[in-house]
């Protein structure tokens, strides 16, 4: 008998940043860095676990925009170019510090990382990273779920049911295209829940999602089992509840595991440390310094005097932290189980990009956790779907409007830095619904135009843009993405209203914003 179940959930997501009109584009590096430091290393962890017959279980949301970028040929070609440069830089670094007993092995570590990425991406997966995830999905160790089409923060759109449905339906179609299956689970972007979203998700045959502890405990009525069991909403959706303590252990920037002094420091990077004439080919044009991914220093503490990174010590610490995580969860499960009529469930949802990109040792921690969980009694790993099949009955409760952001509601996405966008986004949604109602049966060129209009509306709804504007990172890019999408939509709206069509322009736009090839603009029609 197990004292509890542990359900790890990773949300892998990046906004659609493809910029074909430029030969190189800074924000496309978000994808390349995540591939290099998170997605490919995670897949290597999965392969090692499988080779050793470790019964690992993981639920993972691959967002529709991420799936679109991972299956895009242009971005694949650009990632190859990025890897070529990274391998070249690694070789230069090995030559530069190879004889140094401290830094030489670190340069070799990065050379090994980028060579392994090259081999996996080009040779093993044939540039098809989605198929690698699909392999584990089909084998039952990995459960893939989907998320809103462009990761829109859904509570802000609750009064626009057409926009909510468009986000959900387009996501499901994209998931089926990528993996050939209907997703049973749905990751709510930013864990943004509002009462009523459950009925819409159920209408699309989604069975479960995840909510914050705060949103669940403020639900009506209060969940009797706290966060140790999911609740069933009035519409019949199962809402799994995030485990607050497990979140703090991993995510807290200050007291979480990644802040351990032994781990690799995220900020100190040779892109900022080395002379410009040496590093120039590997940073932005014009000598704009950026992160290169080559980082030789440890977190150390609150000081600028960093200690050199010791990969072996960090690996051991990741294993210790995996053991500690399991010990703490096991203890919590034992305490909770005394008051439960079933084993306690602890749901641990994290952003996938935390593992490897920010917390360099994250994939090792995950691997160690899976190996230890398999070897030790006490906790059993489960995917959300498995748990739901084992315990289909849950207390009925409706979680409160909530998110996992600052403040716990919509503060991040509705702020003085970004609130101006909503006037334009809501207008576009309203007009898109109007177009879908006016032209319900279009074919040929007009259908293509309407589909592109729908793409532009979904793209402007992405929660990443207001987040970036508020965070003050890539603000101009985020603002530009929204203004571009609104301008494109407005032009299409005017074209259709005046019955004039710019074929050449629309073809160019289709090639540029080519996300969701199977989109159906009718998803924006009013629900009757």
């Amino acid at each position: 008998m197990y004292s509890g179940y542990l359900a790890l959930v990773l949300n892998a997501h990046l906004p659609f940043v493809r910029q074909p009109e430029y030969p190189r584009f800074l924000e496309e590096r978000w994808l390349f860095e995540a591939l290099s430091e998170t997605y490919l290393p995670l897949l290597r962890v999965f392969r090692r676990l499988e080779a050793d017959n470790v019964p690992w279980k993981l639920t993972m949301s691959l967002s529709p925009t991420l799936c679109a970028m991972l299956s895009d040929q242009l971005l694949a070609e650009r990632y190859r170019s990025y890897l070529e440069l990274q391998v070249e830089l690694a070789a230069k670094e090995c030559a530069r510090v190879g004889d140094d007993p401290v830094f030489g092995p670190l340069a070799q570590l990065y050379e090994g990382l980028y060579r392994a990425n090259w081999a996996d991406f080009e040779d093993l997966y044939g540039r098809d990273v989605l198929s690698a995830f699909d392999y584990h999905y089909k084998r039952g160790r990995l459960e893939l779920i989907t998320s809103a089409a462009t990761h829109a923060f859904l509570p802000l759109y609750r009064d626009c049911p057409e926009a909510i449905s468009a986000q959900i339906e387009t996501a499901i179609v994209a998931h089926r295209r990528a993996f050939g299956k209907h997703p049973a689970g749905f990751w709510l972007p930013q864990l943004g829940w509002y009462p009523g979203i459950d009925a819409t998700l159920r209408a699309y045959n989604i069975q479960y999602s995840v909510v914050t502890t705060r949103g669940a405990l403020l639900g009506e009525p209060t969940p009797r089992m706290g966060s140790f069991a999911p609740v069933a909403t009035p519409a019949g959706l199962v809402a799994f509840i995030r485990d607050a303590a497990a979140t703090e252990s991993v995510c807290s920037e200050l007291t979480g595991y990644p802040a351990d002094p032994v781990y690799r420091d995220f900020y100190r990077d040779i892109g900022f440390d080395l002379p410009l004439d040496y590093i120039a080919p590997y940073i932005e044009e014009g000598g704009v310094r950026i992160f290169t991914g080559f980082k030789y220093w440890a977190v150390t503490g609150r000081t600028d005097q960093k200690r050199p990174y010791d990969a072996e010590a960090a690996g051991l610490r990741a294993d210790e932290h995996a053991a500690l995580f399991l010990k703490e969860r096991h203890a919590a499960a034992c305490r909770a189980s005394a008051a439960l009529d079933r084993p306690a469930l602890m749901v641990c949802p994290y952003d996938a990009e935390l593992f490897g990109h920010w917390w360099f040792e994250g994939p090792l921690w995950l691997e160690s956790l899976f190996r230890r969980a398999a070897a030790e009694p006490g906790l059993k790993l489960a995917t959300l779907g498995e748990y739901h099949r084992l315990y289909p009955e849950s207390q009925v409760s409706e979680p409160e409007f909530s998110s996992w952001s600052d403040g716990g509601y919509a503060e991040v996405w509705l702020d003085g830095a970004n609130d101006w966008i909503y006037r334009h986004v809501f207008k576009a949604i309203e007009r898109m619904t109007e177009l879908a109602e006016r032209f319900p049966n279009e074919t040929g060129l007009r259908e293509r135009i309407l589909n592109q209009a729908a793409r532009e509306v979904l793209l402007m709804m992405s929660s990443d843009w207001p987040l970036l504007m508020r965070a003050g990172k890539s603000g101009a890019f985020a603002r530009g993405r929204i203004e571009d999408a609104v301008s494109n939509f407005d032009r299409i709206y005017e074209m259709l209203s005046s019955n004039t069509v710019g074929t050449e322009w629309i073809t160019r736009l289709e090639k540029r914003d080519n996300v969701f090839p199977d989109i159906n603009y009718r998803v924006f029609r009013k629900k009757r």
Partner: protein
Amino acid sequence: MTSEKFESLSDEELYALADKMGLDLPPGLARVFVAEEILEALEEDSLERRSSASAPMHVDEKKFSCSDALSGVDECRASAAFADRRYNETMIRALVRDPSWAFAYWDIAEADRSALHADGVASLFLRVVELDEGGESAREFFDIPISEGDAQWYINLPHAKARYRIELRLRSGSRSRLLARSTALSVPRQTLEFHATALDARSSELLRLSGLEGLGIEPPPAGNPLRILSGGEGE
């Protein structure tokens, strides 16, 4: 990090935590002072990062870190083409930000704007209407004067777990005319309506183990009429 969590740590663990945070503390310092130093550092960090409870959001930002440069405020503002863009319609939309604040934006069509001027001494205002439980009839309301140049406003809402409607109105003399009204807003609750101890012992314990104390959603002590406001900013 709560006071209860501090109590559960040994002296060694407290010192290890302080060391991890880069705090240089003299050996043999009393626990209470070690805890105080840690709390102070946590608070400082909290101010820097807005809130330690929002860790996932800050982690979320990390994946967008190609450089360590921050955008200027101006880079996030609407460009000239968008700053004053309107759609020539009389409308108002309101969005709930948190239990204390809603954001409203509005516009007035040219035709209505002309009427506004034709009315002579007319003024605009927002009426914040609290709706009854059915969500249809007004229970009470208050007005916020606005100028013709205003186009958006953050509105402090008096009650959590209530429903509101925001109206854009024109006042001319003693008469008031409705120009547009928002859909009904459902404001979320901010705290539980009872203390966890009011539940049966098992549920109370499970809520405690779920981290209830650290969530800040328990109601204020009886007799304290003050509502705990979130950290929202209004205009």
